[in-house]
Protein backbone atom coordinates (compact mmCIF):
# COMPACT_ATOMS: atom_id res chain seq x y z
CA UNK A 1 0.00 0.00 0.00
CA UNK A 2 1.53 3.33 -1.08
CA UNK A 3 0.97 6.21 1.30
CA UNK A 4 -0.62 9.47 0.08
CA UNK A 5 1.80 12.15 -1.09
CA UNK A 6 2.21 14.66 1.68
CA UNK A 7 5.77 15.89 1.15
CA UNK A 8 5.84 19.65 0.70
CA UNK A 9 8.50 19.37 -1.99
CA UNK A 10 5.75 18.63 -4.55
CA UNK A 11 3.27 21.19 -5.86
CA UNK A 12 -0.41 20.36 -6.25
CA UNK A 13 -0.11 19.26 -9.92
CA UNK A 14 2.81 16.98 -9.09
CA UNK A 15 0.96 15.52 -6.11
CA UNK A 16 -2.06 14.81 -8.26
CA UNK A 17 0.12 13.15 -10.89
CA UNK A 18 1.96 11.06 -8.31
CA UNK A 19 -1.31 9.94 -6.77
CA UNK A 20 -2.52 8.98 -10.22
CA UNK A 21 0.67 7.00 -10.85
CA UNK A 22 0.18 5.21 -7.55
CA UNK A 23 -3.32 4.23 -8.65
CA UNK A 24 -1.88 2.96 -11.94
CA UNK A 25 -3.10 5.90 -14.01
CA UNK A 26 -0.71 7.44 -16.48
CA UNK A 27 -1.04 10.77 -18.28
CA UNK A 28 0.02 9.57 -21.76
CA UNK A 29 -0.89 12.87 -23.43
CA UNK A 30 2.54 12.89 -25.14
CA UNK A 31 1.71 9.50 -26.64
CA UNK A 32 -1.63 10.62 -28.08
CA UNK A 33 -0.37 13.94 -29.42
CA UNK A 34 0.13 13.79 -33.16
CA UNK A 35 1.17 17.40 -33.55
CA UNK A 36 3.29 18.54 -35.23
CA UNK A 37 5.56 15.97 -36.84
CA UNK A 38 4.38 12.45 -36.09
CA UNK A 39 4.72 10.48 -39.29
CA UNK A 40 7.55 12.53 -40.80
CA UNK A 41 10.29 10.45 -42.36
CA UNK A 42 13.26 12.58 -43.37
CA UNK A 43 15.41 10.68 -45.84
CA UNK A 44 19.05 11.18 -46.80
CA UNK A 45 19.29 12.75 -50.25
CA UNK A 46 22.67 11.06 -50.53
CA UNK A 47 22.80 7.81 -48.54
CA UNK A 48 26.60 7.69 -48.83
CA UNK A 49 26.75 10.89 -46.87
CA UNK A 50 24.07 10.20 -44.27
CA UNK A 51 21.16 12.24 -42.91
CA UNK A 52 22.01 15.92 -43.13
CA UNK A 53 20.44 19.06 -41.71
CA UNK A 54 19.40 19.91 -45.27
CA UNK A 55 17.51 16.59 -45.39
CA UNK A 56 15.60 17.17 -42.17
CA UNK A 57 14.96 20.79 -43.08
CA UNK A 58 13.43 19.62 -46.35
CA UNK A 59 11.12 17.35 -44.34
CA UNK A 60 9.87 19.73 -41.68
CA UNK A 61 10.24 23.26 -40.26
CA UNK A 62 13.32 23.86 -42.30
CA UNK A 63 12.72 27.50 -43.09
CA UNK A 64 13.21 29.83 -40.13
CA UNK A 65 10.76 32.69 -39.75
CA UNK A 66 12.05 36.19 -40.42
CA UNK A 67 11.03 37.39 -36.98
CA UNK A 68 9.96 34.61 -34.62
CA UNK A 69 7.89 35.78 -31.68
CA UNK A 70 9.25 33.18 -29.28
CA UNK A 71 12.36 33.62 -27.11
CA UNK A 72 12.75 29.99 -26.10
CA UNK A 73 15.11 27.06 -26.52
CA UNK A 74 12.32 24.76 -27.67
CA UNK A 75 13.21 23.27 -31.07
CA UNK A 76 11.84 25.09 -34.10
CA UNK A 77 8.62 23.33 -35.08
CA UNK A 78 7.98 21.63 -31.71
CA UNK A 79 4.85 22.02 -29.59
CA UNK A 80 5.51 23.85 -26.36
CA UNK A 81 3.76 25.21 -23.30
CA UNK A 82 2.38 28.73 -23.39
CA UNK A 83 4.37 29.91 -20.41
CA UNK A 84 7.94 29.02 -21.36
CA UNK A 85 10.38 31.51 -19.85
CA UNK A 86 11.86 34.23 -22.04
CA UNK A 87 15.57 33.50 -22.54
CA UNK A 88 16.38 37.14 -23.10
CA UNK A 89 17.58 36.77 -26.67
CA UNK A 90 18.35 40.06 -28.38
CA UNK A 91 19.02 38.75 -31.89
CA UNK A 92 15.50 37.80 -32.90
CA UNK A 93 15.43 38.69 -36.57
CA UNK A 94 16.77 36.41 -39.23
CA UNK A 95 18.70 39.07 -41.16
CA UNK A 96 20.81 39.81 -38.09
CA UNK A 97 22.45 36.36 -38.05
CA UNK A 98 21.52 34.28 -41.08
CA UNK A 99 23.39 33.33 -44.22
CA UNK A 100 21.98 31.15 -46.98
CA UNK A 101 24.96 28.79 -46.87
CA UNK A 102 25.08 28.27 -43.11
CA UNK A 103 23.26 24.91 -43.05
CA UNK A 104 25.60 23.40 -45.65
CA UNK A 105 28.64 24.93 -43.93
CA UNK A 106 27.67 23.33 -40.62
CA UNK A 107 27.53 19.91 -42.26
CA UNK A 108 30.81 20.57 -44.03
CA UNK A 109 32.44 21.65 -40.78
CA UNK A 110 31.37 18.61 -38.82
CA UNK A 111 32.41 16.28 -41.64
CA UNK A 112 35.86 17.82 -41.99
CA UNK A 113 37.05 18.13 -38.40
CA UNK A 114 40.62 17.03 -37.69
CA UNK A 115 42.95 16.53 -34.80
CA UNK A 116 46.10 18.56 -34.26
CA UNK A 117 47.50 15.62 -32.31
CA UNK A 118 46.62 12.75 -34.65
CA UNK A 119 46.44 14.20 -38.17
CA UNK A 120 49.64 16.25 -38.31
CA UNK A 121 52.80 14.27 -39.14
CA UNK A 122 54.84 15.71 -36.28
CA UNK A 123 57.58 13.16 -36.95
CA UNK A 124 58.39 14.94 -40.22
CA UNK A 125 59.64 18.07 -38.43
CA UNK A 126 63.38 18.49 -38.95
CA UNK A 127 65.93 20.85 -37.48
CA UNK A 128 65.92 24.06 -39.48
CA UNK A 129 68.49 26.86 -39.78
CA UNK A 130 67.93 29.31 -36.93
CA UNK A 131 66.60 32.17 -39.09
CA UNK A 132 64.07 29.86 -40.76
CA UNK A 133 62.98 28.32 -37.45
CA UNK A 134 62.57 31.77 -35.93
CA UNK A 135 60.52 32.90 -38.93
CA UNK A 136 58.26 29.84 -38.65
CA UNK A 137 57.85 30.40 -34.93
CA UNK A 138 57.16 34.14 -35.22
CA UNK A 139 54.31 33.34 -37.60
CA UNK A 140 53.13 30.43 -35.44
CA UNK A 141 53.11 32.75 -32.41
CA UNK A 142 51.06 35.35 -34.28
CA UNK A 143 48.57 32.72 -35.42
CA UNK A 144 48.32 31.14 -31.99
CA UNK A 145 47.56 34.63 -30.66
CA UNK A 146 44.97 35.76 -33.19
CA UNK A 147 43.05 32.61 -34.01
CA UNK A 148 41.14 32.35 -30.76
CA UNK A 149 39.40 35.67 -31.45
CA UNK A 150 37.21 33.76 -33.89
CA UNK A 151 36.09 31.57 -30.98
CA UNK A 152 35.74 34.29 -28.36
CA UNK A 153 33.78 36.58 -30.64
CA UNK A 154 30.98 34.17 -31.61
CA UNK A 155 30.89 32.81 -28.06
CA UNK A 156 30.08 36.31 -26.85
CA UNK A 157 27.07 36.58 -29.18
CA UNK A 158 25.87 33.00 -29.27
CA UNK A 159 23.58 33.12 -26.24
CA UNK A 160 21.98 36.31 -27.53
CA UNK A 161 20.85 34.67 -30.77
CA UNK A 162 17.35 33.28 -30.82
CA UNK A 163 17.48 29.49 -30.90
CA UNK A 164 14.97 29.58 -33.74
CA UNK A 165 18.14 30.11 -35.83
CA UNK A 166 19.83 27.07 -34.36
CA UNK A 167 21.84 26.36 -37.52
CA UNK A 168 23.74 29.62 -37.14
CA UNK A 169 24.52 28.85 -33.51
CA UNK A 170 25.63 25.34 -34.39
CA UNK A 171 27.90 26.61 -37.17
CA UNK A 172 29.46 29.15 -34.83
CA UNK A 173 30.13 26.32 -32.36
CA UNK A 174 32.08 24.51 -35.08
CA UNK A 175 33.98 27.70 -35.75
CA UNK A 176 34.89 27.99 -32.08
CA UNK A 177 36.18 24.39 -32.16
CA UNK A 178 38.15 25.12 -35.34
CA UNK A 179 39.83 28.09 -33.73
CA UNK A 180 40.66 26.21 -30.56
CA UNK A 181 42.40 23.68 -32.79
CA UNK A 182 44.27 26.44 -34.65
CA UNK A 183 45.54 27.90 -31.37
CA UNK A 184 46.59 24.37 -30.43
CA UNK A 185 48.34 23.47 -33.67
CA UNK A 186 50.36 26.69 -33.93
CA UNK A 187 51.33 26.58 -30.27
CA UNK A 188 52.47 23.00 -30.84
CA UNK A 189 54.44 24.01 -33.93
CA UNK A 190 56.17 26.82 -32.04
CA UNK A 191 57.17 24.53 -29.21
CA UNK A 192 57.99 21.37 -31.16
CA UNK A 193 61.14 22.22 -33.08
CA UNK A 194 63.44 24.37 -30.96
CA UNK A 195 62.13 27.83 -31.79
CA UNK A 196 59.49 28.53 -29.19
CA UNK A 197 56.96 31.26 -28.68
CA UNK A 198 58.05 34.65 -29.89
CA UNK A 199 56.86 38.25 -29.97
CA UNK A 200 53.29 39.57 -29.81
CA UNK A 201 52.47 43.12 -30.84
CA UNK A 202 50.30 45.91 -29.51
CA UNK A 203 48.78 46.68 -32.91
CA UNK A 204 47.61 43.10 -33.33
CA UNK A 205 45.98 43.06 -29.92
CA UNK A 206 44.28 46.39 -30.66
CA UNK A 207 42.68 44.91 -33.78
CA UNK A 208 41.59 41.83 -31.82
CA UNK A 209 40.06 44.08 -29.17
CA UNK A 210 38.15 45.99 -31.84
CA UNK A 211 36.61 42.74 -33.03
CA UNK A 212 35.84 41.43 -29.57
CA UNK A 213 34.16 44.65 -28.49
CA UNK A 214 32.36 45.47 -31.73
CA UNK A 215 28.99 46.97 -30.78
CA UNK A 216 26.90 44.70 -33.01
CA UNK A 217 27.23 41.16 -34.32
CA UNK A 218 27.25 42.15 -37.99
CA UNK A 219 29.95 44.74 -37.42
CA UNK A 220 32.14 42.26 -35.56
CA UNK A 221 31.35 39.59 -38.13
CA UNK A 222 32.49 41.88 -40.95
CA UNK A 223 35.71 42.75 -39.09
CA UNK A 224 36.40 39.14 -38.19
CA UNK A 225 34.98 36.90 -40.90
CA UNK A 226 35.58 39.04 -43.95
CA UNK A 227 38.49 41.32 -43.13
CA UNK A 228 40.43 39.39 -40.47
CA UNK A 229 39.85 35.80 -41.52
CA UNK A 230 40.11 36.75 -45.18
CA UNK A 231 43.65 37.97 -44.47
CA UNK A 232 44.45 34.93 -42.36
CA UNK A 233 43.20 32.63 -45.13
CA UNK A 234 45.84 34.15 -47.39
CA UNK A 235 48.46 33.77 -44.66
CA UNK A 236 47.50 30.09 -44.40
CA UNK A 237 47.78 29.69 -48.16
CA UNK A 238 51.12 31.48 -47.99
CA UNK A 239 52.15 29.22 -45.11
CA UNK A 240 51.42 26.13 -47.18
CA UNK A 241 53.38 27.64 -50.05
CA UNK A 242 56.37 28.41 -47.80
CA UNK A 243 56.25 25.22 -45.71
CA UNK A 244 59.67 23.76 -44.95
CA UNK A 245 58.44 20.21 -44.36
CA UNK A 246 55.41 17.94 -44.53
CA UNK A 247 54.41 18.88 -41.00
CA UNK A 248 53.89 22.54 -41.83
CA UNK A 249 52.36 21.67 -45.19
CA UNK A 250 49.64 19.65 -43.49
CA UNK A 251 49.07 22.20 -40.73
CA UNK A 252 48.45 25.01 -43.17
CA UNK A 253 46.44 22.90 -45.59
CA UNK A 254 44.01 21.79 -42.90
CA UNK A 255 43.73 25.28 -41.42
CA UNK A 256 42.98 26.70 -44.88
CA UNK A 257 39.89 24.52 -45.10
CA UNK A 258 38.50 25.69 -41.77
CA UNK A 259 39.24 29.35 -42.38
CA UNK A 260 37.64 29.34 -45.83
CA UNK A 261 34.36 28.10 -44.29
CA UNK A 262 34.34 30.98 -41.82
CA UNK A 263 35.03 33.53 -44.54
CA UNK A 264 32.28 31.98 -46.63
CA UNK A 265 29.73 32.31 -43.82
CA UNK A 266 30.76 35.90 -43.10
CA UNK A 267 30.48 36.95 -46.72
CA UNK A 268 27.05 35.43 -47.14
CA UNK A 269 25.89 36.77 -43.79
CA UNK A 270 26.76 40.32 -44.84
CA UNK A 271 24.91 39.73 -48.10
CA UNK A 272 21.81 38.46 -46.29
CA UNK A 273 21.99 41.32 -43.79
CA UNK A 274 22.19 43.97 -46.48
CA UNK A 275 19.52 42.40 -48.68
CA UNK A 276 17.03 41.97 -45.86
CA UNK A 277 17.66 44.96 -43.64
CA UNK A 278 14.50 47.09 -43.34
CA UNK A 279 16.53 50.18 -44.23
CA UNK A 280 19.05 48.82 -46.71
CA UNK A 281 20.57 52.19 -47.66
CA UNK A 282 21.25 53.09 -44.05
CA UNK A 283 22.70 49.66 -43.30
CA UNK A 284 24.97 49.85 -46.33
CA UNK A 285 26.17 53.33 -45.39
CA UNK A 286 26.96 52.17 -41.85
CA UNK A 287 28.92 49.17 -43.09
CA UNK A 288 30.86 51.35 -45.53
CA UNK A 289 31.75 53.72 -42.70
CA UNK A 290 32.96 50.80 -40.61
CA UNK A 291 35.01 49.46 -43.53
CA UNK A 292 36.52 52.91 -44.19
CA UNK A 293 38.03 52.85 -40.72
CA UNK A 294 38.80 49.14 -40.45
CA UNK A 295 40.67 49.00 -43.74
CA UNK A 296 43.17 51.52 -42.42
CA UNK A 297 44.52 48.74 -40.24
CA UNK A 298 45.56 46.62 -43.21
CA UNK A 299 48.53 48.69 -44.34
CA UNK A 300 49.68 48.71 -40.70
CA UNK A 301 49.48 44.93 -40.58
CA UNK A 302 51.40 44.54 -43.81
CA UNK A 303 54.13 47.00 -42.96
CA UNK A 304 54.84 45.35 -39.63
CA UNK A 305 58.34 43.85 -39.60
CA UNK A 306 57.30 41.09 -37.21
CA UNK A 307 54.78 39.90 -39.79
CA UNK A 308 56.25 40.59 -43.22
CA UNK A 309 59.91 39.87 -42.52
CA UNK A 310 59.41 36.29 -41.32
CA UNK A 311 57.35 35.67 -44.46
CA UNK A 312 60.13 37.15 -46.57
CA UNK A 313 62.78 35.04 -44.82
CA UNK A 314 60.78 31.89 -45.51
CA UNK A 315 60.21 32.87 -49.12
CA UNK A 316 63.81 33.80 -49.71
CA UNK A 317 65.13 30.72 -47.95
CA UNK A 318 66.95 32.63 -45.22
CA UNK A 319 67.72 36.10 -43.98
CA UNK A 320 70.50 36.46 -46.58
CA UNK A 321 67.89 36.38 -49.31
CA UNK A 322 65.23 38.40 -47.58
CA UNK A 323 65.10 40.85 -50.51
CA UNK A 324 63.98 38.09 -52.86
CA UNK A 325 61.50 36.94 -50.26
CA UNK A 326 59.70 40.25 -50.33
CA UNK A 327 58.16 39.05 -53.61
CA UNK A 328 55.97 36.74 -51.52
CA UNK A 329 54.86 39.61 -49.32
CA UNK A 330 53.94 41.70 -52.35
CA UNK A 331 52.05 38.74 -53.72
CA UNK A 332 50.11 38.23 -50.49
CA UNK A 333 49.31 41.96 -50.29
CA UNK A 334 47.84 41.95 -53.79
CA UNK A 335 45.85 38.76 -53.25
CA UNK A 336 44.48 39.89 -49.92
CA UNK A 337 43.26 43.17 -51.29
CA UNK A 338 41.70 41.66 -54.40
CA UNK A 339 39.97 38.82 -52.58
CA UNK A 340 38.70 41.13 -49.84
CA UNK A 341 37.24 43.51 -52.42
CA UNK A 342 35.68 40.60 -54.33
CA UNK A 343 34.01 39.30 -51.18
CA UNK A 344 32.65 42.74 -50.32
CA UNK A 345 31.33 43.08 -53.87
CA UNK A 346 29.69 39.67 -53.69
CA UNK A 347 28.01 40.69 -50.44
CA UNK A 348 26.56 43.77 -52.11
CA UNK A 349 29.03 46.29 -50.70
CA UNK A 350 31.25 47.40 -53.54
CA UNK A 351 34.36 48.95 -52.03
CA UNK A 352 36.48 49.27 -55.15
CA UNK A 353 35.98 52.99 -55.62
CA UNK A 354 36.14 53.70 -51.93
CA UNK A 355 38.88 51.56 -50.42
CA UNK A 356 42.10 53.18 -49.30
CA UNK A 357 44.05 49.93 -49.21
CA UNK A 358 46.81 50.57 -51.76
CA UNK A 359 46.63 48.32 -54.81
CA UNK A 360 50.30 47.51 -54.48
CA UNK A 361 52.67 47.08 -51.59
CA UNK A 362 54.71 50.26 -50.98
CA UNK A 363 57.99 48.33 -50.96
Amino acid at each position, binding site marked *: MVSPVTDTIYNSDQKEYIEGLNRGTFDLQWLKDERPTFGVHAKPR*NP*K*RGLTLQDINAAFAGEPEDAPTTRVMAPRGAVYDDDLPDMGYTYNEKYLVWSD*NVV*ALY*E*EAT*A*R*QWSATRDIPWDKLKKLPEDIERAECQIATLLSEIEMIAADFPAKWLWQMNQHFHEVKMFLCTQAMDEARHLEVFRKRALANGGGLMHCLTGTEQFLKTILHAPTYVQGSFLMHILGEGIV*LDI*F*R*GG*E*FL*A*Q*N*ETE*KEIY*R*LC*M*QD*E*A*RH*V*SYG*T*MHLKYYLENHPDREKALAEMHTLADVAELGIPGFLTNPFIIEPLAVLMGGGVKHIDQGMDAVR*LIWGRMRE*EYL*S*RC*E*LAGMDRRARTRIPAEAPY
Partner: protein
Amino acid sequence: MKFPTVEWFEALEKQAEKNSDTFRRLGFCEAAVGVKVLAAENGQTRDRSFLLTFNSYSCNSVEEVDNIEQAADFVMEANFGTWKEMIENITANGGADLSHTLNYLVMPGVPMKVTSHDQLKDDVFSRFISTFQEFFDGAQHVETEFSG
Protein backbone atom coordinates in the same frame (compact mmCIF):
# COMPACT_ATOMS: atom_id res chain seq x y z
CA MET B 1 46.69 5.76 -69.46
CA LYS B 2 46.96 8.89 -71.56
CA PHE B 3 46.93 12.34 -69.99
CA PRO B 4 44.81 14.41 -70.44
CA THR B 5 41.76 12.20 -71.00
CA VAL B 6 38.55 11.36 -69.20
CA GLU B 7 39.95 7.86 -68.71
CA TRP B 8 42.98 9.21 -66.87
CA PHE B 9 40.83 11.10 -64.40
CA GLU B 10 38.56 8.07 -64.02
CA ALA B 11 41.64 6.07 -63.10
CA LEU B 12 42.27 8.60 -60.31
CA GLU B 13 38.65 8.14 -59.27
CA LYS B 14 39.23 4.39 -58.97
CA GLN B 15 42.35 4.99 -56.90
CA ALA B 16 40.32 7.15 -54.58
CA GLU B 17 37.78 4.35 -54.18
CA LYS B 18 40.60 1.99 -53.17
CA ASN B 19 41.73 4.61 -50.67
CA SER B 20 38.22 5.31 -49.40
CA ASP B 21 39.11 5.26 -45.68
CA THR B 22 41.43 8.21 -46.16
CA PHE B 23 38.84 10.16 -48.12
CA ARG B 24 36.14 9.45 -45.55
CA ARG B 25 38.44 10.76 -42.86
CA LEU B 26 39.03 13.96 -44.83
CA GLY B 27 35.29 14.43 -45.00
CA PHE B 28 32.47 14.91 -47.42
CA CYS B 29 33.26 17.12 -50.39
CA GLU B 30 30.81 18.95 -52.61
CA ALA B 31 32.52 20.75 -55.47
CA ALA B 32 32.60 21.09 -59.23
CA VAL B 33 36.28 21.25 -60.09
CA GLY B 34 37.54 22.36 -63.48
CA VAL B 35 40.86 21.19 -64.87
CA LYS B 36 42.08 22.99 -67.93
CA VAL B 37 45.10 21.85 -69.95
CA LEU B 38 46.15 24.66 -72.23
CA ALA B 39 46.89 23.84 -75.86
CA ALA B 40 50.61 24.12 -76.01
CA GLU B 41 53.69 21.93 -75.94
CA ASN B 42 51.97 18.63 -76.54
CA GLY B 43 50.55 18.95 -80.02
CA GLN B 44 47.00 19.69 -78.88
CA THR B 45 45.17 22.02 -81.20
CA ARG B 46 42.78 23.24 -78.54
CA ASP B 47 42.56 23.63 -74.80
CA ARG B 48 41.08 20.60 -73.08
CA SER B 49 38.86 20.99 -70.06
CA PHE B 50 37.55 18.41 -67.63
CA LEU B 51 34.82 18.75 -65.07
CA LEU B 52 35.40 16.66 -61.94
CA THR B 53 32.30 16.44 -59.78
CA PHE B 54 32.86 15.76 -56.12
CA ASN B 55 29.58 14.91 -54.43
CA SER B 56 30.65 12.27 -52.01
CA TYR B 57 33.90 11.59 -50.25
CA SER B 58 35.74 11.87 -53.53
CA CYS B 59 35.16 12.46 -57.21
CA ASN B 60 32.19 10.61 -58.67
CA SER B 61 32.05 11.78 -62.24
CA VAL B 62 34.36 13.12 -64.91
CA GLU B 63 33.43 14.65 -68.21
CA GLU B 64 35.20 16.65 -70.87
CA VAL B 65 33.37 19.92 -71.42
CA ASP B 66 33.75 23.04 -73.52
CA ASN B 67 32.22 25.57 -71.17
CA ILE B 68 34.29 24.76 -68.12
CA GLU B 69 34.15 28.31 -66.68
CA GLN B 70 30.37 28.10 -66.50
CA ALA B 71 30.20 24.51 -65.29
CA ALA B 72 32.84 24.52 -62.55
CA ASP B 73 33.06 26.29 -59.20
CA PHE B 74 36.66 27.07 -60.08
CA VAL B 75 39.12 26.07 -62.78
CA MET B 76 42.74 25.02 -62.25
CA GLU B 77 44.47 26.06 -65.41
CA ALA B 78 48.00 25.32 -66.58
CA ASN B 79 49.90 24.35 -69.65
CA PHE B 80 50.61 20.74 -70.46
CA GLY B 81 54.20 20.94 -69.21
CA THR B 82 53.11 22.05 -65.75
CA TRP B 83 50.56 19.27 -65.40
CA LYS B 84 53.15 16.77 -66.64
CA GLU B 85 55.76 17.96 -64.15
CA MET B 86 53.24 17.79 -61.30
CA ILE B 87 52.15 14.26 -62.17
CA GLU B 88 55.73 13.06 -62.64
CA ASN B 89 56.65 14.56 -59.29
CA ILE B 90 53.73 12.83 -57.59
CA THR B 91 54.77 9.54 -59.17
CA ALA B 92 58.41 9.95 -58.20
CA ASN B 93 57.74 10.94 -54.60
CA GLY B 94 54.66 8.92 -53.72
CA GLY B 95 52.69 12.17 -53.53
CA ALA B 96 53.47 15.79 -54.34
CA ASP B 97 56.65 17.11 -52.77
CA LEU B 98 56.74 20.51 -51.07
CA SER B 99 56.96 22.45 -54.31
CA HIS B 100 54.40 20.52 -56.36
CA THR B 101 51.26 20.66 -54.23
CA LEU B 102 48.21 22.22 -55.83
CA ASN B 103 48.30 25.23 -53.53
CA TYR B 104 52.03 25.70 -54.13
CA LEU B 105 51.50 25.72 -57.88
CA VAL B 106 48.55 28.12 -57.88
CA MET B 107 49.49 30.50 -55.04
CA PRO B 108 51.67 32.87 -57.11
CA GLY B 109 49.33 32.63 -60.12
CA VAL B 110 52.05 30.83 -62.10
CA PRO B 111 52.67 28.19 -63.32
CA MET B 112 49.08 27.22 -62.52
CA LYS B 113 46.19 29.49 -61.71
CA VAL B 114 42.76 29.15 -60.22
CA THR B 115 40.03 31.14 -61.89
CA SER B 116 36.42 31.61 -60.91
CA HIS B 117 33.67 34.05 -61.73
CA ASP B 118 32.70 34.22 -58.08
CA GLN B 119 35.00 34.71 -55.07
CA LEU B 120 32.89 32.39 -52.94
CA LYS B 121 33.37 29.60 -55.49
CA ASP B 122 37.04 30.45 -55.76
CA ASP B 123 37.21 29.78 -52.01
CA VAL B 124 35.89 26.24 -52.61
CA PHE B 125 39.47 25.43 -53.66
CA SER B 126 40.61 26.22 -50.11
CA ARG B 127 37.63 24.60 -48.38
CA PHE B 128 38.37 21.12 -49.77
CA ILE B 129 42.09 21.39 -50.57
CA SER B 130 43.04 18.24 -48.63
CA THR B 131 40.58 16.13 -50.62
CA PHE B 132 41.76 17.59 -53.94
CA GLN B 133 45.43 17.04 -53.04
CA GLU B 134 44.78 13.45 -51.97
CA PHE B 135 42.85 12.87 -55.20
CA PHE B 136 45.71 14.07 -57.42
CA ASP B 137 48.27 12.26 -55.28
CA GLY B 138 46.52 9.09 -56.48
CA ALA B 139 48.37 9.66 -59.78
CA GLN B 140 51.32 7.84 -58.23
CA HIS B 141 49.41 4.60 -58.86
CA VAL B 142 48.37 5.37 -62.45
CA GLU B 143 50.68 4.58 -65.33
CA THR B 144 50.58 7.78 -67.29
CA GLU B 145 51.51 8.48 -70.90
CA PHE B 146 52.06 12.06 -71.81
CA SER B 147 51.94 11.94 -75.57
CA GLY B 148 49.56 14.55 -76.90
